[in-house]
């Protein structure tokens, strides 16, 4: 039984990082305003959301299975508090950190209409932190670290995200490169001191 849990934890962890990679790439794709990957924009956006929700389910499975796993000896507060674990605290702590960030990103996204776009966007930027932390956690903590297949998967994920980020930063990213930047004119913020 405990072996089954251990295998499940490892498997779900690996699938999670692959899914999170897809989520990040779709997120970047939906940011472009271009139909990406041969899909219309709203479909990219919907896929991004649905893949994210699926990833959450897998990550939850990953964490819960570890709670019951005798090797990992994960305690409840290890899920929330990073770097306090007994089993490879640094590597496991990265996992906890990635999990916390993921929860923050998902919760703010679900409450997006209530929180407002600005709060949501700021938290969403944490995805660029969450994803690499999760990747490093997978490479370092798993009992599979050093296996050729985990390295292959991780490198493939990294290359995919790097390519997407490169595209994001390239000039060809926006559909309307000649568009003027939206920025509030500084002159409107002048002379604002209140005079009594």
């Amino acid at each position, binding site marked *: 039984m405990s072996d089954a849990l251990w295998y499940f934890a490892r498997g779900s962890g690996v699938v999670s990082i692959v899914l999170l990679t897809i989520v990040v790439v779709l997120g970047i794709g939906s940011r472009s305003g271009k139909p990406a990957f041969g899909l*219309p924009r709203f479909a990219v956006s919907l896929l991004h959301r649905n893949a994210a929700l699926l990833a959450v389910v897998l990550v939850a499975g990953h964490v819960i299975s570890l709670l019951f796993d005798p090797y990992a000896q994960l305690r409840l507060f290890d899920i929330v508090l990073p770097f306090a674990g007994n089993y490879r605290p640094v590597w496991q702590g990265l996992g906890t950190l990635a999990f916390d960030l993921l929860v923050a990103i998902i919760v703010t996204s679900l409450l997006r209409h209530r929180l407002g776009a600005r709060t949501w966007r700021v938290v969403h930027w944490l995805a660029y932190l969450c994803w690499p932390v999760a990747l490093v956690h997978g490479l370092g903590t798993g009992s599979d670290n050093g296996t050729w297949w985990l390295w292959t998967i991780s490198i493939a994920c990294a290359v995919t995200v790097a390519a997407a980020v490169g595209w994001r930063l390239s000039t060809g990213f926006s559909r309307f490169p000649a568009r003027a930047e939206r920025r509030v004119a500084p002159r409107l913020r002048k002379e604002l001191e209140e005079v009594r």
Partner: protein
Amino acid sequence: MKLHVDWTACDGRGVCTELLEEVLVEDDWGFPVARDGQRSPTVPPPLEAAARQAVDRCPMLALKLRSR
């Protein structure tokens, strides 16, 4: 229903123009234009579900549906 665009938020990402082709088109810079020429275009009942989806999916939360 009417679709309200908050122009201070809209970034012309074009999600709404795809989901609501019957109501909106893109202008020269990718920002939505109401086909009916109204400030807040009318959304006919059959398109309300699509409009709700656009409101939900707009990356800038720039869209709102209102009853008048």
